[in-house]
């Protein structure tokens, strides 16, 4: 057993907590992307600008998660510290398109 493996055995990673954190990120992503879709639809954004809006919003949410939820230290909550930025970044895209289309149509009509 080298020292890193030994350290991991003394302070093991709790899989329950890891699952809980991952689930929290997923939930935040899907809810926020729905709200971004509503916003984009009401603003009447079209084509590239709408998708750029989604990515800007997702990055902003990632920043909030990084600063507020993970307190600047995401490696304490996830096995890979980039999970806060990239994890589940695309799961909300379909929901975003749905609400975007719907509110775009509602405002337009």
């Amino acid at each position, binding site marked *: *057993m080298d020292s890193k493996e*030994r350290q991991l*055995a*003394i302070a093991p990673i709790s899989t329950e907590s890891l699952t809980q954190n991952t*689930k929290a990120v*997923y*939930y935040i992503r*899907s*809810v926020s*992307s*729905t709200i971004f879709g509503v916003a*984009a*639809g009401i603003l*009447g*954004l*079209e*084509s*590239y600008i*709408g*998708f750029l809006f989604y990515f800007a919003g997702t990055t902003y949410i990632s920043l909030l998660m990084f600063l507020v939820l993970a307190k600047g230290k995401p490696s304490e909550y996830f096995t890979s510290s980039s999970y806060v930025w990239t994890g589940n970044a695309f*799961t*909300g895209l*379909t*929901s*975003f*398109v*749905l*609400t*975007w*289309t*719907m509110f*775009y*149509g*509602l405002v*337009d*009509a």
Partner: protein
Amino acid sequence: MAAAPDLVLDSSLRDWVLFPILLVMILVGILRHYVTQLLQTTPKQLDLLTIREQQALSRGASLRGNGKFIPQSSFLSRKLYLTQAFKDGIFLKDQEAFKNKDEPKQPANPLAEPGGMDQMANMLKGNMVMIVPQTLLMSWINFFFSGFILMKLPFPLTIRFKSILQSGVMTRDLDVRWVSSISWYFLCLFGLRSVYDIILGSNNSASGGMDMGGMNMAAGGIPGMQPGQDVYKLHLSEAENIELTSHEYLLEDIEDRLLIKYDMY
């Protein structure tokens, strides 16, 4: 909007097509969630010897995984006992068949095992719950709401999508951004997942079948136990694994570490 003239959509299209489809899709998702929950069968009660046969394997695995928390002597005695017991087959369900092993044993049929049958029925049910509402909804929308433009997409698409998204609309030159109700159905199908997450909480089964991993985990009992497999071989390989496990007592210098941690050294 350079190519096509602007269209003005009647607001009753919105009231009587857009909202009903959305509402029905959401309700069907919720219904699917509860039907899936109702259809989940509780695992069948196994008799004592079968459970012992299965649990012996996890006993070996937990010794391998957690052996570092017990002293060397305790680990060794457990190791000796378990390897010997696995080799003698004393955890096996069918002792008679193990003793006269010489007779040719016909391979067990996976369908004959009760566990395998359950698993298959569960998978079938899951597929049915997913496919039947989708077929019904699609034909419902095709029957009632085809042949007119429902909405305008906020992003442009290539001309290839025209035949799918504008099915039933007999115009050649209309911009692909104007789509009929079937594409609204597809948008709902893929996009409602987060709505279900908000309504039913995460880990729901409303969106149906896209995450099959969880279902399979629930159906199969112990991972690595396929029905119709020779259990004695599994036990033998577990014995070998235990023999290969090296032991290091993790609490060896625990006093020193504790004092260092709380800065009392």
